[in-house]
């Protein structure tokens, strides 16, 4: 059974249908990309999946149960974590604290335990702090645990967002343009990181990305959206060959990308 499944999903704003009857299935353990021109409804789809928007019609099934009507925090607690297109860190909090917020739903401490500093509370804080440092190192940040998130350089902020999402121990990781604004070397590093997350942590990844090198390189399946509708789906090779996709989105850039890869 698919980990995530949408059935005839519709989300509209006034007269604009941002997501139009999208049927989509995501098998567990895969890396899947959603591509499409600006305004195609990719981020709206993410926001609908994570509960920030409620769908107007249709079903979302995740890990065997429906997500429709749930709040974003409930959806997060069921194992869906995400990053944002325009980085949304907690700027005035330290790097470690940002990651600790990601663990919120998993921490069992009660206010009373916190007030009295009971041993169980201290142990949990110590363990979660330790785990946070591990995650920080995992995404390639070190020695910045006590820095304020807003003071990190751009690339590090992107990495921190991924660490914060991983802190929730998700089944599915949604990445919204994770390579935006990165230089080629950084892009390569995060691509590698994503693959590692899937291979070693067993987390399914769904990403929106404009950088075709990343998309073609990492995805096992690509879903193309245009004007809110899913216009194509398939392996990178199939998508490259799909004339409708080329017309709608890829244009000549894809051909160039193809040449580059062949070299």
């Amino acid at each position: 059974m698919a980990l995530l499944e949408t059935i005839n999903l519709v989300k509209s704003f006034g007269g604009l249908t941002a997501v139009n009857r999208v049927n989509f299935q995501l098998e567990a353990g895969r890396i899947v990309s959603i591509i499409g021109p600006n305004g195609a409804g990719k981020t709206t789809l993410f926001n609908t999946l994570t509960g920030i928007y409620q769908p107007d019609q249709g079903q979302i099934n995740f890990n065997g149960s429906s997500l429709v009507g749930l709040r974003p925090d409930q959806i997060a607690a069921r194992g869906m974590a995400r990053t944002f297109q325009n980085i949304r860190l907690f700027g005035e909090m330290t790097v470690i604290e940002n990651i600790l917020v990601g663990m919120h739903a998993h921490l069992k401490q009660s206010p009373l335990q916190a007030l009295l500093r009971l041993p169980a509370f201290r142990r949990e804080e110590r363990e979660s702090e330790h785990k946070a440092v591990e995650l920080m190192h995992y995404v390639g940040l070190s020695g910045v645990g006590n820095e304020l998130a807003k003071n990190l350089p751009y690339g590090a902020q992107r990495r921190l967002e991924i660490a914060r999402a991983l802190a929730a121990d998700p089944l599915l990781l949604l990445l919204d343009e994770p390579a935006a604004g990165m230089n080629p070397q950084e892009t390569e590093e995060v691509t590698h990181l994503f693959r590692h997350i899937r291979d070693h942590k067993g987390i399914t990844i769904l990403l929106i990305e404009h950088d075709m090198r990343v998309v073609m390189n990492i995805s096992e399946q690509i879903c193309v959206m245009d004007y809110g509708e899913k216009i194509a789906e398939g392996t990178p090779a199939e998508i490259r060959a799909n004339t409708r996709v080329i017309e709608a989105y890829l244009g000549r850039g894809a051909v160039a990308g193809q040449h580059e890869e062949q070299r």
Partner: protein
Amino acid sequence: MTTPFSTLFLRTLNKGVLPYLLILVHIALGSALVYTAPRSNLAFLVLISSLFTLYALKADNRFKLIAGAILALLIIPVIGVRNIFYLEVIFQISVFAALALGLNIVVGFAGLLDLGYVAFYAVGAYLWAFFGSQQYYVLPFAPGTQPSDLPFLLPGDAFYLFLFLAIIVAALTGILLGLPVLRLRGDYLAIVTLGFGEVIRVLANNLDKPLNFTNGPQGITPIQRPTMPDWAVQGFNDLFGPLIGHTVSPADMYNLYFYLLALLVIIVIIFVTRRLDDSKIGRAWTAVREDETAAIAMGVPLVRMKLAAFAVGASFAGVMGVLLAASRTFISPESFSFMQSIGVLSMVILGGSGSIAGVILGAAVVTILNLQVLQGFSLYLSELRQSEAIIPIINFAWRDLSTQLDPAKYQRLLFGLILILMMIFRPAGLIPAKRRKRKLADDQPAAE
């Protein structure tokens, strides 16, 4: 952000035993000044500011604790009963510090702008005012028509019980207000809380009919105080009589007693605030303040966390309300006006939103400015007016100065100015909030 100069300045002071010496000298100087000149505002300021020195300089925590305890439990009581006005100032600082700490949780930590915060203070105050006075038997009478020989509903010692009850009642009020409005953000929330603050005040003003719950604008009086054992008064006089120079009346002892109670409440509040701030709740609050959408997407239950902030903040105000009602023995709706909410908010912003030490300093600065500096200045001007003094050069006689020029009346003007200047030059407040640095053994800095 600390300016390089002040950092440099502090660094030179924080060498070896110098900070210890400075703290002791400051406290001793302040005490001596106040002791020899019990009427001088300046002397009092020197003494009170030693608390800040104690906070700002680096010294062993045990030393700070002992010095602070001596200052708060010995020096201030003694000079306080010598000049009861000082005690009043300090009591007011304590009350406002507690309120500012409560509001700090809502505004500073969770980032929810609450413009009706004194409503919770009013709830606490009216709670004890109703149960700790004759008001229950006044219910059927219109204000001013009740017979004079009504009994009290509860004994004065129920006050202690109501300190705890107020926590619950105020917290519930906070949740009740929070439930419908916390879906709102920013400006919208501010407006609704402002409305709520007014609703509570108007209720207090008008709930004298059909049943007389609040006695309307006249307010409720007398409100009982907890009984104070005779041996406490006697013991205090025996112990400190020689230092003070006169026997202290039970009435003055009450002032002292309420000061100590307020101090105790503040210590508990600081304790609770710090512990909560350093747990998942505190982190969730800050996350909500920084970015609601990201917080909820990370699994932080937004509404529950906001309600928690409202409830905790409200409960602090509720306790202080009970304390105020008992210490004043009189309350009226006037004490809970919109300007009071704004006053507490400006203490939080002036001191440093989100910073515990900051908001206490904010409360102290604003209260002292109100009660001492401006009034002292007014007094000084009126003295000049009566004298024959003339400003040289421009040949202006002080006695021609308009009586309208009364600094005490310009309190709000001055506040506004201070807040504007703060926003321009030090937007994070006098003592900006700092995140706790963790000892991360397994995270070695790459380069530092």
